[in-house]
């Protein structure tokens, strides 16, 4: 098992792109604790997965990381600066692509820029340069209903990227896709996120997805609905050789290393129902 490196700031002097410090989260202002002691970080170009069974509070943690909700205790730092409870600084992407049906793809993609005050014309000009790179060439003037599930997800990812700050929070982003498209999209996402040096926190209940995509995996354990707050049961560093790291996640999933990492995650989830 690779050695864990929990605090890159110490010694290395690296400030993580996003860092959560000892978060305590609640659904109802304090009476019902969902998660406790959540500390995690993610660097530029790194993909971090949070794995846990359904209902363990993964989305609640992601909401706190995005600033949509305020934790009872703890802080969220964006490149070292406290932005706890302040939405609008990091990108957020959900399993639903959430493209607005009444906007053409280019307008959907440009939405974060337009909201921040960029003129529509400037935003179009900037985004148009990225369409080819994101595999969306020729779709600029189409409506969302004219795109396939995979293409819509690419458009949603380009919109996420344009939200800025190069930090993306992804809530089961590929779970609504069919199995074949999902595998393609995972590979594509890993390649894009690493080449754009984007810091990604992905939540999933799919252990295979976590092991194929992540550089590090945080395993979450707990049943908040039964009064057991979720905590981080362990952190696993996934190391691949260079060819695999380049984005060929499908090949990696066929290696003995993959099975070994999967075993480690499952061992940490032991009492949960993910198996």
């Amino acid at each position, binding site marked *: 098992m690779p050695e864990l490196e929990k605090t890159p700031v110490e010694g290395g002097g690296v400030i993580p792109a996003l860092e959560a410090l000892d978060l305590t989260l609640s659904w109802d202002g304090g009476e019902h604790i969902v998660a406790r002691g959540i500390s995690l970080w993610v660097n530029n170009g790194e993909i971090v997965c949070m794995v846990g069974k359904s209902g363990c509070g993964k989305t609640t943690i992601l*909401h706190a990381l*995005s*600033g*949509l909700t305020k934790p009872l205790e703890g802080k969220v730092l964006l490149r070292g600066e406290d932005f706890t409870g302040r*939405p*609008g*600084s*990091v*990108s*957020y992407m*959900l399993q*639903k692509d*959430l493209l*607005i*049906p*009444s*906007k053409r793809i280019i307008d959907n993609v440009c*939405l*974060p820029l337009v*909201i*921040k005050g960029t003129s529509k014309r400037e935003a179009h000009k900037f985004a148009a340069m990225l369409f080819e790179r994101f595999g969306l060439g020729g779709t600029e003037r189409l*409506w*969302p*209903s*004219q*795109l*396939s599930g995979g293409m819509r997800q690419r458009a949603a990812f380009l919109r996420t990227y344009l*939200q800025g700050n190069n930090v993306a929070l992804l809530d089961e982003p590929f779970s609504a896709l069919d199995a074949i498209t999902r595998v393609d999209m995972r590979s594509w996402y890993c390649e894009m996120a690493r080449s754009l040096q984007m810091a990604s926190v992905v939540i999933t209940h799919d252990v295979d997805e976590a092991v194929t995509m992540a550089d590090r995996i945080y395993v979450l354990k707990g049943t908040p609905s039964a009064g057991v707050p979720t905590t981080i049961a362990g952190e696993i560093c996934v190391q691949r050789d260079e060819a695999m790291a380049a984005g060929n996640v499908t090949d990696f999933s066929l290696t003995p290393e993959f099975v070994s990492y999967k075993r480690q995650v499952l061992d940490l989830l032991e009492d949960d129902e993910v198996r």
Partner: protein
Amino acid sequence: MATNRLSEPSRTRQIAVPTATVAILLVVWELVVRMGFVPNFLLPSPTQVVSALVTDVQLLASHAGTTILEAVLGLAIGVAVGFVAAVLMDRFETIYLAFDPLITISQTIPTVAIAPLLVLWFGYGLAPKVILIVLTTFFPVAVSLVSGFRSVDPDMIDLMRTMGASDLQIFTQVKLPAALDQFFSGLRISATYAIVGAVISEWLGGFNGLGVYMTRVRKSFAYDRMFAVIILISLLSLLLMKLVDLLERVCMPWKHVEGK
């Protein structure tokens, strides 16, 4: 292997079947009157109705102009009032809780019962007619808009907030376009209410309009003219609905593209 799956009827079939049904009904109606099964003074034949329509076309056009003016004015104000009411109800929960039951109750009051009161309060001019149309048309618009605003996926609102969107941006970029579909359904209903509302208000007092004309021909037992004006009212309602459809096509181009 045979399949039980129902397929969409062809465009030709969609037009031919109802056209044939109407044509058959008209022929039966014509025959029933001509063969004397129903006395002619009680029920004019379709050809007599068309003849009355052609003979009185100028008079009808003049009365129709008044009715259309009242209907369009009332509908425009009704839509504006409905829109403002829906926005306030969506924005402020207290306003929603306070006015939702009142708006529903207001729709249970029959139009014919309010019309004489409006004449009493506002006279025989344009005002009582427009007010009556506003009262009947704002409801479908307000209800459909409130429902449309509330149909927006909460995740979409969260996503907009992560982009740093203000309440106004969330409204203009997400809520308003999402409510358009339901808004046009409501507007289509309001458009038909507008013409009918105008006619009802004219029955109870006024100097011009299709309702006034209708009262006159009824009193003179000219049932062929009575039917002629009924047909004209239906045609006007259909025309207004068609205009709403056209407006919808212009405002919602994404609804009419072929999906993947």
